[in-house]
């Protein structure tokens, strides 16, 4: 984020205070408002060009109601994910979303950016867990939707509307979540293959596997090396890796690991390793943190049909990218190589990858790059058919474009 564009910061400690301030801005100066939480996704989207004020939600971090026996919690949106996880863990519960930088990331930020990771395959994404929401519109008026019960179809589902809306429609102040029990244990099977075509065969086999993984990731060797280093583990990294995660009782996870090994044997993997206990936790963290914008010149995310993802990963690898794919979901996170030093080189490299994603019913967005490159790149990918409806929604809810005005679909 171009910090030069942020002239001030407002840090409310109550929703009332937040409403008043947003309302005064709307009826007064009408400055752009940039909602922020833990600022972990601050690179996302176009560069800021208009001077405005950051609206920081970290002062809104109270637990409103935690009826643990209902497996729901209502909390303010500025709570850090680490803090939230700690509170839930005391009751043996969790919000099963993989969040990088969880000591900084806030619930509101995770919701607004629809953050997810490897476990989305088995456990879903934020849209599956948010059952109630309170937010403040661009006029400073509070509104809510959903409720505190796990099943509810009264009114439009504004929770879904706000998940992934990047702070462009309203500022989320309070969230009610559906929770899950913490599993007894987890285990990864780290399988190396000589060729990507074998990975494709393995994925085909997985569609009728007797096992029920919670994650299915494909790592090309550069990503595998980075993740193994981050996790402090010793695992083979010089070939493509299929990393399959299981959660449950010790009995369930070990049975599944053994079964998967048997099922994939005919494909002839180069080798496989079980990652268990503390090492399994370290690996979850490393897989999650990989998607965080790094020192690389540009990070992108492609979404496409799962069956076409191995082909895409092959092409990205050929293009020198470091790539992790949540391959059974068709989600690919990649980094352009260091040798890309100009925006035109970046645009060229991305264009062919985007074309491949488009051919596979998907798209490609830029997650992070230098601010000076942003105006020259199609950050949100090629236009989607639903974008005119999204602009219409923005026009209704924030007609003066006060919230994150730089983001337009």
């Amino acid at each position, binding site marked *: 984020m171009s910090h030069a564009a942020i002239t001030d910061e407002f840090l409310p400690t109550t929703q009332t205070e937040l409403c008043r301030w947003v309302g005064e801005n709307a009826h007064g100066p009408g400055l752009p408002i940039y909602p922020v939480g833990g600022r972990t996704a601050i690179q996302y989207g176009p560069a800021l060009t208009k001077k405005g004020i950051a609206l920081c939600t970290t002062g809104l971090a109270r637990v409103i109601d935690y009826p643990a026996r209902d497996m729901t919690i209502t909390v303010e949106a500025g709570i850090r994910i680490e803090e939230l996880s700690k509170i839930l863990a005391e009751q043996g519960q969790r919000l099963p979303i993989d969040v990088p930088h969880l000591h900084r990331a806030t619930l509101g930020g995770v919701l607004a950016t629809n953050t997810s990771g490897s476990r989305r395959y088995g456990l879903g994404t934020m849209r599956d867990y948010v059952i109630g929401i309170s937010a403040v519109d661009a006029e400073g008026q509070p509104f809510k*939707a959903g*409720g505190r019960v796990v099943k509810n179809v009264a009114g439009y589902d504004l929770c879904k509307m706000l998940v992934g*809306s990047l702070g462009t429609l309203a500022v989320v102040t309070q969230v009610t979540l559906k929770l899950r029990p913490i599993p007894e244990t987890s285990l990864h099977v780290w399988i190396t293959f000589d060729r990507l075509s074998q990975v494709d065969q393995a994925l085909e086999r997985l569609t009728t596997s007797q096992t029920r993984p919670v994650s299915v990731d494909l790592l090309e060797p550069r990503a595998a090396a980075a993740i193994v280093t981050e996790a402090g583990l010793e695992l083979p990294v010089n070939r493509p890796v299929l990393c399959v995660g299981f959660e449950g*009782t010790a009995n*369930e996870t070990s049975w599944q690991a053994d079964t998967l090994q048997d099922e994939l044997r005919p494909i002839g993997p180069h080798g496989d390793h079980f990652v268990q206990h503390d090492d399994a936790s370290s690996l979850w963290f490393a897989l999650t943190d990989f998607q965080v914008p790094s020192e690389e010149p540009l990070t992108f995310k492609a979404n496409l049909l799962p069956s076409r993802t191995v082909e895409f990963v092959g092409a990205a690898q050929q293009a020198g990218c470091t790539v992790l794919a949540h391959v059974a979901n068709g989600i690919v996170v990649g980094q352009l190589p260091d040798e890309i030093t100009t925006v035109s080189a970046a645009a060229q490299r991305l264009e062919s990858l985007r074309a491949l994603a488009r051919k596979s*019913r998907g798209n490609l967005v830029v997650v992070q790059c230098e601010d000076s490159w942003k105006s020259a790149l199609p950050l949100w990918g090629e236009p989607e058919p639903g974008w005119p*409806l999204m602009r219409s929604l923005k026009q209704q*809810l924030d007609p003066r474009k006060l919230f994150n005005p730089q983001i337009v679909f």
Partner: protein
Amino acid sequence: MTTATASLPLQMPAPFLDGLRLILGEAGLLADPDELLVYECDGFTIAKNAPDVVVFPTTTEQVAAIVKLCNQYQIPFVPRGAGTSLAGGCLPVGGGVMITLTRMRKIVEVNLRDRYAIVEPGVVNVHLTNHLKGTGYHYAPDPSSQGACTIGGNFATNSGGPHTLKYGVTVNHVLGAEMVMPDGAIVEIGGPVEDSPGYDLTGLFVGHEGTFGICTKVIVRLTRDPAAYRTMLGVFNSVQDATQTISNIIGAGIVPAALELMDQGIIEALEAAFHFGFPLDAAAVLLIEVDGLEVAVDEEARKIIDICRETGAREVRSANTAKERLLLWKCRKQAFGAIGRLSPSYCTQDGVVPRTKLPEILDFITAVGERHGLRIVNVFHAGDGNIHPILLFDERNAEQVKRVLIASDEILNKCIDLGGSVTGEHGIGVEKINFMSKLFAPHDLAVMAKVRAAFNTGQLCSPQKMLPTAGACGMEHIERKAPGRHAAM
């Protein structure tokens, strides 16, 4: 006072009807008043209003052409699937054209590797599941009306069902849709891939109750079949013990695939209908199903049986064969059909409470029944806290009917007081529209109205649905005269 039944028939201009015939052919529409009577209501039989014409398009292009023609002549229109809505979701409040989608019933594509299917809106829910048999995949949402209800209708109302406890409701299984917008434009939202850039329009559109346009294709996520099931029947001497058991199971961090409660009244009707062998002297039974890996289900079932015994179950039976399991589920899903044995008419409610408040709401329902001299039986999705009290009555007794309406409102108001909702899966439609301002503040509703205006600027597409402020003549003035005779849930 106005009533939904009192709206004047619209004059259908002859060129408009000719235009419809040109789009659909003579076999594609009904305009004879006698034939239209079938379409005057859905599963919510209180409010009735026949449409002026019913059309049966077979393609998206026909739907778009119909909608454009309606715009040209300023005629309101409303979509309809199988008409199993229990809240008047398909009621043509302002008359006009009813666009019935049951002839759009092709399963367009099934892609197992990418775990999705594309279906037309008129595909019956269970037909998709039948189509997938043997592949190892299924479509998870399974409303009890799944033998009749359509996937387009499920999309419109965000339908639930017994297995939503573990697998989630319709919205958790929809990836995208093709919509004919209220102006006739055809737009694809979402798609077979995840995380398309931009807002989650798919998530917002599921449950729109026809107010954002007409869905002409749905892209649904397919789910792996569970490897193993264990289905149990916990038998209790008191409803309190049964509800406490539910609370304890969830509180112990166990998420069964389904957790359903049936009380004595319903057991009696079911036993008479199906001869399953339900204990007639039990106050309540819990139908509990766990699914997952063969290596895991026994352990989970054992934990549940222990909890049942600790909370006073006098017996826990297990379904020993697949046939027995299917029969148990048949009983549960057809419970409503069996009600006819208890009473000439009945009214089902669809409230939700936090799961820990189940004992409290069940006590309240009993007290309401006693206070109003009404018999109320219960069969519901207990694990989700989604209650379905069934109020029995005789519609020939006007005074009794009045008591049923008062009792229903008391129960739903109590759900709100306990931190719940007035609908878990049936929708707002026209039935619950008066409750919207009890659940939501004026500005909450104003934001929802803006959201609708983003997609539906005119007054023609599904007028007077969902939001109390919508439309010219307020539905808040509708006075319900008789409770519905609801068919299934």
